[in-house]
C-alpha cells in the first residue's frame, strides 16, 4: 500500500510476530485470516496466540476458518459478527498482562473498529500491528448525527441514521476508528455528484 496522503490516516504494515511478547492476540476478519497465516504459520509464537476470527457472512470463508484451525494456536474463537468479536476481545483484554501484542487484519473499517476498542481498553498503539486485506471499505462517522456507518465503499454515501448525503472527508480518527462524513449538499441542496469508489 502506498503511503497515504491523508496525514491522519493510519499506515498499515505487514504482520510479524514479536518474539519477546508473552501473549499474542490476533483479531482477523475475512481475508485477514490469510495475512495471519502468512505471518504465523510454523512459528513457535502460535503456542501463545489466541485468534479471534469473524468470517464475512456472504463469502465462502470456510477455507479461511480451515486455514486458521490448521495453525494449531493456543485458542481459536469464531465470532458470528464483528460486534460479538469485540465483546470477546474486551473479555480477553480485561485479563491481559504487560507484554501482550495485538495483530489486526481485515478491511480498513474492521481494523478501525478493533483498534479503537483496544485503545479504549488501555492497549498502547505501539502494541498493535495492523495489515490491510480485503475490500477498501471505510468506516464513517456522520458528524451531524454521530451515527457510525460500516463498510462504506464510495463517497458520497447516504447516512442511514439521519438521511443526509455525506462527503467522506480525508480525515480519520483512531479514537473513533472512523473517517468523518459531512453533508455534501449543504450549500446546494440536492446537488449530488455521482459516488466515487475508494481505491485501496
Amino acid at each position, binding site marked *: 500500500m502506498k503511503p497515504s496522503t*491523508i496525514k491522519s490516516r493510519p499506515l498499515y504494515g505487514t504482520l510479524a510476530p514479536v518474539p519477546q511478547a508473552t501473549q499474542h492476540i490476533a483479531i482477523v476478519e475475512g481475508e485477514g485470516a490469510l495475512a495471519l497465516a502468512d505471518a504465523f504459520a510454523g512459528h513457535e509464537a502460535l503456542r501463545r496466540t489466541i485468534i479471534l476470527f469473524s468470517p464475512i457472512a456472504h463469502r465462502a470463508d470456510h477455507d479461511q476458518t480451515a486455514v486458521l484451525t490448521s495453525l494449531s494456536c493456543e485458542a481459536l474463537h469464531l465470532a458470528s459478527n464483528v460486534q460479538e468479536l469485540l465483546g470477546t476481545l474486551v473479555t480477553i483484554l480485561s485479563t491481559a498482562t504487560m507484554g501482550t501484542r495485538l495483530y489486526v487484519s481485515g478491511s480498513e473499517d474492521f481494523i478501525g473498529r478493533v483498534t479503537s476498542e483496544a485503545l479504549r481498553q488501555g492497549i498502547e498503539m505501539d502494541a498493535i500491528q495492523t495489515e490491510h486485506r480485503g475490500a477498501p471499505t471505510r468506516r464513517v462517522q456522520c458528524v*451531524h448525527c454521530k451515527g457510525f456507518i460500516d463498510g462504506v465503499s464510495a463517497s458520497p454515501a447516504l447516512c442511514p441514521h439521519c438521511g443526509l448525503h455525506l462527503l467522506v472527508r*480525508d480525515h480519520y*480518527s483512531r*479514537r473513533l476508528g472512523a473517517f468523518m462524513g459531512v453533508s455534501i449538499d*449543504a*450549500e446546494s441542496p440536492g446537488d449530488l455528484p455521482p459516488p466515487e469508489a475508494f481505491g485501496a
Partner: protein
Amino acid sequence: MTLSFHAETFRDDYTFANSPAAIRAFPFPFDRDAYMYTVNIEQHVPGPVQSATEFPIHIDEHYVAEMRDRAITLAEDPLRCQSLPHMMTAEWDLLELLMTSMATHYPAHFTLSRDGDRWHWINRPMDVDQTFTFGDVSTLPQGPMEYVTRQCQGDFCLLDQREDNLWMDAGMVTSQADWSLDFDLGMNFMEWHAPVPLAHDLGVFERALKFLLNLQHGCPVRRLNWTMTINPRLDTSPENYHRWGIDKASVTPENVGDKVHLRVELQALWRLPRSNAIVFSIRGYLIKMDELVTQKKWARRFHRVLASLPQPIADYKGLGRFRDTTVAWLSRHDDGLPTSPGFAPD
C-alpha cells in the same frame, strides 16, 4: 476599565455589531497585501491600550452575549465540551490561568479571592458568586474546564505533551471555524492538522510542533488565523454545517456589506505549571464588510489579499461561493493607493 455589554445574538436574527471602539480594536490579520501560510508565532506580550492584545485574556463588549450563545450550543450538543480522564490537573491549571487573568485585568467585573485552597470567584456580568476548593471537583457545578470556559470568551483546547508530540485531549469548542473537537479528540498535532492543504509540504507543522514542545511556563505565544463567515454566526461547526452551509449561497452584490464577515482567531498558547499541558486558546473576532471598510487601509488591503489568495487556501477556508462577489464589492473601496506597513489602521 468598565465595559458595557451588548444584548445581541449570533444566530436567528443576528443582531451582533461592533462599536467604533471595537472596530479599532479588531485584530486585523494582514500586515501586507498578500497572504500565505507562515509560522507566524510571536510572544504573547501586552499590545497597545484598548487592542485585542492589551491583556492576556481579552474580554470585550460581546462577552455576555457570547457566553449566552455558548450555553445554547452546549445545551444542544454537550459533546462540544470534552475531557479525557488524565486531563483533570490541566483543567485546574486552566481555571487558575483564566480566573487570575480576568480578575487582574478587569477588576470592575471579576474578583478572585484566595485563602489557601479556598477560592471565592465573583463574575458580576454573569451574576456568579462561587466559593470552591481548588483541586476538589465536587465543589464546582461542572468540571473546572467547563466551569471556567462557560465564563470566558474564546474556545479552549488542552494539549497533553508526551512522546514528543501534543495531544488534543480536552477542550471547550463552540465557536469553531469548521472543525470538530469530538472528532479530533485524542489526536496528535499532525493528525488534527491533517486536512490543512499546502502547509504540510511547507514543513510548517513540523517547525510549529518543535517550537511548541519547548514552550516555557510564563512565556505564552500567539498567532493570528482567519477565515470568512456568512452572518455573524459563532457556531460554524461541522456538526451544524447542514444548517449554516446554505448561508454561503445567500450572498449577493447588494448584501455583501452586511452578511460577509472576516473572522479572525487570536490564538494563544500557554504552558501550564502543574500538568505541563498546553492551553491553546482560540479567541474569535467577527467584523462585517461594512464595518471593515470604515478603515481605509484595511479595505484596500483585504481587497488585495482576497483577490490574490491561492485557490487551495480559498477552497479549504470554504470561500468559493462568495469570494468573487466580495472581491467585486471590496474593489469599490480600493483606490489603488499603497498601504502602510503593519497591521494597525491608519
